[in-house]
C-alpha cells in the first residue's frame, strides 16, 4: 500500500453519488483526528484511534499528534475548519485510554488573528491534555508577530524552539518557518542549529528522540517548498542515536520515509487536504466531494517496527 493510497479516488465523481458502506464507515471514523503515538521500549508506534481504542491500555508512553488546524479557514475546500477541529478533539476526548499529552505541529490558525487563536484554544483545551506546540508559517502573520509567542512561546528559545523529556524519551520542538530565503525551503537557522547541537551533546545514544516541526525535515517536493533547507545539519547531530522519529505537518497528507535510524512522518490536517506532490498545479487547498472530506482529514495509522532493515509503511485505514 503506498502512502498515496488515501488519495486514490479523490477526483472520482462516482464517489459523490453512491458511497459504499465501507466508504461511509471510513468517513464516519476518519473525521479529522490525530495520530496516537505509543512508545514501548523506546520504539515509537503510531496507532489509528480505533485501533488504539480496541487495544489494551498501552504500557509505555502514548501521545497524540494533531496538525494544521487552520482555524479561520472558510474557503470551499472546508468552509468550517473550526468544526472539523472540534470533531477531532471530540474523538480524542472520547478515547478510552488517555494519552499523556498532545503535540501540535503548527498552522494552528489560518491568519494569526487573535480570535482564531482564541477559538483554537477553546476547542483544543476540551481534550484536557497538555499540548506542546510548534508554529507554522500561518501562526506568525500578525503585524507584531506576538500572538503565537504570547500564547505558546513562553519559556522557549528564539522563535519558539525547546525540548523536554517524558518517560525517558527526549522531545525536541523546532521552528522552521521563519527567516525564509527567496527561492529556498523551510529554514532552521544557525542559532537554532547551535542550540540543537548543544541540547543533544552528552545525551545517551540510547535515548529515543522525537523531533517535531511544522515543515517536513526531509525534502518531500522542493518545487512546492516541501522541505527544510538546512535539515541535513540537524540530522547530523541526530546521527548515532538508536531511535529518531521526526514528526511534521504542513503538507496535509500522510507521508513516511525511513532513512537509517530516522523515521520521518507527516500527519494529516484537521482542516483541508492538499494534493499529492505534483498532482495539481499548486499545493493549495484541495476541494473534494463533501462526503469525502473527512476521509482526508486528521488521522493516519502507521506502524513502526525497529530492528528491520526496511520498515513497512502501513497506511492503515481505520476500518482496515
Amino acid at each position: 500500500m503506498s502512502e498515496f493510497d488515501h488519495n486514490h479516488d479523490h477526483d472520482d465523481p462516482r464517489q459523490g453519488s453512491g458511497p459504499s458502506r465501507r466508504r461511509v464507515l471510513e468517513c464516519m471514523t476518519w473525521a479529522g483526528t490525530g495520530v496516537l503515538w505509543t512508545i514501548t521500549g523506546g520504539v515509537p508506534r503510531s496507532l489509528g484511534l480505533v485501533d488504539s481504542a480496541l487495544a489494551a491500555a498501552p504500557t509505555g508512553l502514548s501521545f497524540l499528534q494533531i496538525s494544521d488546524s487552520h482555524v479561520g479557514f472558510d474557503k470551499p475546500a472546508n468552509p468550517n475548519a473550526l468544526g472539523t477541529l472540534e470533531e477531532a478533539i471530540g474523538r480524542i476526548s472520547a478515547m478510552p485510554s488517555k494519552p499523556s499529552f498532545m503535540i501540535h505541529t503548527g498552522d494552528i490558525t489560518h491568519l494569526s488573528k487573535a480570535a482564531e487563536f482564541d477559538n483554537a484554544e477553546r476547542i483544543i483545551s476540551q481534550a484536557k491534555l497538555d499540548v506542546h506546540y510548534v508554529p507554522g508559517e500561518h501562526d506568525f502573520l500578525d503585524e507584531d508577530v506576538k500572538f503565537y509567542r504570547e500564547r505558546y512561546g513562553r519559556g522557549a528559545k528564539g522563535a519558539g524552539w525547546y525540548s523536554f523529556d517524558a518517560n525517558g524519551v527526549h522531545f525536541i520542538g523546532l521552528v522552521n518557518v521563519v527567516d525564509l530565503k527567496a527561492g529556498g525551503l523551510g529554514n532552521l537557522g544557525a542559532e537554532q542549529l547551535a542550540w540543537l547541537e548543544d541540547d543533544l551533546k552528552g545525551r545517551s545514544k540510547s535515548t529515543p528522540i522525537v523531533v517535531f516541526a511544522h515543515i517536513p525535515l526531509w525534502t518531500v517536493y522542493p518545487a512546492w517548498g516541501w522541505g527544510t533547507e538546512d535539515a541535513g545539519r540537524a540530522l547530523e547531530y541526530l546521527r548515532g542515536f538508536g531511535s529518531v522519529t521526526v514528526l511534521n505537518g504542513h503538507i496535509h497528507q500522510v507521508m513516511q520515509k525511513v532513512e537509517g535510524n530516522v523515521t520521518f512522518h507527516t500527519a494529516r490536517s484537521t482542516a483541508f487536504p492538499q494534493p499529492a506532490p505534483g498532482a495539481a498545479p499548486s499545493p493549495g487547498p484541495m476541494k473534494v466531494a463533501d462526503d469525502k472530506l473527512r476521509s482526508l482529514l486528521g488521522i493516519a495509522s502507521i506502524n513502526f517496527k525497529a530492528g528491520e532493515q526496511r520498515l513497512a509503511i502501513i497506511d492503515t485505514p481505520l476500518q482496515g
Partner: protein
Amino acid sequence: MIRQSLRGTASLAFAAVIALCLAGAPAYADDTEVTIDNFTFSPASLTVKVGTTVTWKNHDDIPHTVVSAGKFRSKTLDTDDGFSFTFTTAGDYKYFCSLHPHMTGMIKVE
C-alpha cells in the same frame, strides 16, 4: 460638540473628494498588475518605466506576501487582497513570498 462633528463631516467629505479626484485621475498608461494564482506570480518577470505603480493581487485560497529585501514588504495578503508599490528608482527588484519562498518574481524598472 455639534460644530466639531460637523467639521469632522466636512473634512471627511473633503477627503472623499480628494480621494475621488485621485481615483479619477488618469492612471499612468503602464500601471500594471501582477496576479498570484496557484502559488505563482504572473508575469514572473515584468519590465516597467520609472514611476509605474505595480499592484499584486492574490487569487489563491492561501495567504501570500510580496517581499523585496530592503525595498518593499506587503502585509499578509488574504484571498483577493492587493498590494501596490510605485517604483521611483530604476533597477532590478527581485521579490518573493516570505511564506512560500519558492514563489519568486522580478520587476525590472527602466
